[in-house]
């Protein structure tokens, strides 16, 4: 009975692992193909079923018939990193304020303000797309990096607030008070005493910001056109019947690789119990 149970376990794990790897494997082999490897039907094994070439990879850098994703890649990097950084800073500050002090604006109190921040994530992108479009047009920031960064900051900040408020709440207020009595005004207290004690929170929040920032398609799609392009948009733009699959696959690998690395970081965090409490 026990061996049957064990066998089932490993079977299940194998099946799902296969399911997970399947598209990645396909991506990998396809990126090395040429027309011969594609038009005859699906092929998997290099040299045995098709002749591998680096054409797909080379085309990433431009050239005739190439797709040049270097610029979009860099744009994505800039927008994701700066958007996440700013969102993290503003969000952490706001979270600390909400955790420590009480605010009042008529009937609106701390809990409502926190809810306001977090509820932004519920907003379907489509609802925001039109106003964002009109707003950026009014500001003259359509199709530009700063415009996109502004939008990303607003979209990613709720994530930072959501994560950091919980982390701040686990730190006893006595610590703030001790710092005050040792001569630290609130801002100094925040920077020198509280912040060093919520580092794991910053890591988690930062990670989520990076993931959602890098992977965003919709807003980049609706708010940029020709001058500024982000990676996901440029890859989707390739998704016409003309574009060779090998270029597509190579671009996809390049796009997906950076965050796959994050999976390691997340797992380490998970195994150390870092994420307990994020699901309220």
């Amino acid at each position, binding site marked *: 009975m026990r061996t049957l149970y064990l066998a089932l376990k490993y079977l*299940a*794990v194998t099946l799902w*692992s296969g399911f*997970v790897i*399947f*598209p990645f494997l*396909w*991506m990998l082999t*396809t990126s090395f193909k040429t027309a011969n490897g594609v*038009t005859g039907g699906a092929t998997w094994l290099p040299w045995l079923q098709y002749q591998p070439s680096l054409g797909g990879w080379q085309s990433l850098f431009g050239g005739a018939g190439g797709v040049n994703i270097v610029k979009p890649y860099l744009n994505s990097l800039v927008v994701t990193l700066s958007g996440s950084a700013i969102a993290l800073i*503003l969000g952490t*500050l*706001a979270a600390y*304020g*909400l955790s*420590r*002090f009480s*605010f009042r604006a008529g009937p609106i109190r701390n809990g409502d303000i926190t809810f306001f*921040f977090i509820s*932004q*994530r519920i*907003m*379907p*992108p*489509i*609802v*925001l*797309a*039109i*106003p*964002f479009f*009109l*707003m950026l047009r009014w500001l003259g920031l359509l199709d530009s990096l700063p415009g996109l960064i*502004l939008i990303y900051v*607003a979209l990613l*900040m*709720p994530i930072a*607030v959501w994560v950091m408020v919980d982390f701040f709440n686990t730190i006893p207020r006595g610590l703030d008070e001790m710092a005050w009595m040792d001569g630290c005004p609130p*801002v100094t207290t925040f920077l020198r005493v509280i912040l060093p004690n919520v580092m794991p929170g910053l890591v988690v929040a930062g990670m989520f910001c990076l*993931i959602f920032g890098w*992977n965003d*398609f919709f807003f980049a799609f609706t708010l940029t056109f020709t001058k500024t392009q982000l990676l996901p948009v440029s*890859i*989707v733009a*390739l*998704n016409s019947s003309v574009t060779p*699959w090998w270029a*597509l*696959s190579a671009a*996809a690998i390049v796009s*997906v690789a950076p*965050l*796959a690395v994050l*999976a390691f970081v*997340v*797992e380490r965090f*998970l*195994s150390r119990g870092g*994420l307990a409490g994020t*699901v309220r």
Partner: protein
Amino acid sequence: MYRQKYIFLLPGLLVLVAVILFPLIFTIRVSFSSWDVYNPGLNYAGGAMYARLWEDSRYWEALWRLSLLSLSTVLIQYVLGFALALLVWRDIAARRFLRVLFLVPMMATPVVMSVIWRTIFHESLGPLNPILEALGIGAQPWLSQAAHAFAAVMIVEIWQWTPFMFLLLLAGLLSLPSEPFLAARIDGAGPVRTFLSVTFPMMGAISVGAILIRAIEASKIMETVYVLTSGGPGTATETVSYYIYIRGMRDFQIGYAAALSLTYLVIMAVALTLIAKALIRLMVRESRA
């Protein structure tokens, strides 16, 4: 008491209010206009857009399709995610490697993966049909028939987002106290019994949280549909977000799209609240912890 506290809250709050709140209010105003390509600008059309929305069967069908799609995928993701979390929770070889592997899909850019899935589902050149033929199931008209297209979207969503559910549930499992499990072992409970009486009830609150978070994200689905099927064939996989995108961004009927969006937002908020309440009553009551 301390004036310095505003330094903390205001910068973030102001950005949020400026970037999201005002545009949202503006959208409400736009929904009462008939702004489109032919009459650009903010006129006043009363509730005309809303009246039109009421009659628009395509919209309501899209809503129905979205509900079907999200609820079924979230449910499947929950079951699979829970099973996976249990599998790599303990007592298994290469546990950490498997955890990393299972996490990867949710890190991969969804749109980009949808593009790849499109090549996979390709009926003549994609690798999926040959495998199905080899298994004896036969090639499927993945993207050219309604039910299959729907299934294709579901498969992609499940591949992409089960890891997310998996992550939340595994984090929950790892945070459970060990005493009840020791007690169950001493009482001689087998794995199934332990799961039903100990594990599942204790995960009640966490399950509700994970399902809700995932449901909220699932209801926004748009990118997969856009890339994989473009809402097709016909309107078979057209979800609300996609339909609004068509009306707003493609047809540029901004006034109408605004009305559609806001109605959608309200419906979703209400639906999610109801689902949340129902879930809490259903699942948290089970947990005695």
